């Protein structure tokens, strides 16, 4: 392993502040430079590790950029058909109610082909956690327009920007899920700065702990970037996300449990 280190005298095991958690495997992530998927993966791994759920956790990986997620987290996994992760997770949770079950889905998976599964799983109040990565584009297939693409946003299938008259309005999935009876905790976060990473980790930890109460579906939407799909550098894409995505998808809790 090639390494580049800072001041060598400080590098001792007792001075360790932050290290990649052991649940993350040594495989190199297949994502583009600067993609928020990697940070989101690590946060889930950290929460699972800190809550001691490595042997209990079962993830359902989607179709999309994060399709190989089972290579990166050292827990049990099940691959689902495109968009059907909440339905598969429902079955796993009902058969193995003592396990911790979560799905990890992008916006092409959860908000397009899997809208019905998502809404019905949340409406039934299945005790699963849904992690929803929203980057407003179909990242894996080449940056086509997704249901979550912003009005006026350029993509490879809307080269003059999304026209809401002919292409419809963007779908706010988390707001939609928050109105359903079965959902218990719905929040929208992001992972582009250290402060937001900490907030997102807290939100994921809450969702993990709420699953033990068997009260309903928890959804954590993570507004993320897609530097390749948006045709920007990672730093530019984070800035663009702050300026354009956050006004339309405001961060914060959308539904919190009533005490």
């Amino acid at each position: 392993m090639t390494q580049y280190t800072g001041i060598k005298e400080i590098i001792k095991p007792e001075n360790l502040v932050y290290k990649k958690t052991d649940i993350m495997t040594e495989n190199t992530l297949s994502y583009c430079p600067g993609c928020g998927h990697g940070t989101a993966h690590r946060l889930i791994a950290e929460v699972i590790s800190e809550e001691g759920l490595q042997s209990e956790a079962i993830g359902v990986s989607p179709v999309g950029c994060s399709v190989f997620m089972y290579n990166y987290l050292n827990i049990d996994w099940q691959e689902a058909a495109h968009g059907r992760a909440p339905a598969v997770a429902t079955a796993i949770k009902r058969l193995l109610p003592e396990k911790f079950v979560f799905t990890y889905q992008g916006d092409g998976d959860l908000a397009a082909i899997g809208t019905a599964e998502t809404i019905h799983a949340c409406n039934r109040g299945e005790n699963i956690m849904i992690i929803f990565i929203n980057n407003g584009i179909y990242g894996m297939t080449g940056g086509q327009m997704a249901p979550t693409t912003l009005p006026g946003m350029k993509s490879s299938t809307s080269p003059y920007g999304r026209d809401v008259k002919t292409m419809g309005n963007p779908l706010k999935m988390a707001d939609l899920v928050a109105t359903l009876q079965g959902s218990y905790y719905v929040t929208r976060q992001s992972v582009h700065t250290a402060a937001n990473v900490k907030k997102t980790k807290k939100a994921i930890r809450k969702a993990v702990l709420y699953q033990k109460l068997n009260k309903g579906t928890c959804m954590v939407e993570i507004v993320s970037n897609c530097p390749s799909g948006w045709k920007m550098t990672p730093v530019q894409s984070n800035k663009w996300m702050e300026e354009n995505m956050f006004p339309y998808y405001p961060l914060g809790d959308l539904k919190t449990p009533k005490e």
Partner: protein
Amino acid sequence: MAKIRGSIVVDVEKCKGCEVCMVTCPTGTIAMAKEVNGKGYNYAFPANPELCIGCANCAMVCPDGVITVYKTKI
């Protein structure tokens, strides 16, 4: 007054050179190398190691988790 000093270790071969850590670093410790790693990316490295305060902001935003952070009081 006790001074806090930090140090980072970058796993160069896994770094994809996205520069997110460089932007988030509050003290300007991290810079991108002129050389490239095995994949052809200009990797991140501690260009000004004496400035590091061990805040771990870089490690938290790194999508590939290549940064390990150490901190001590002097």
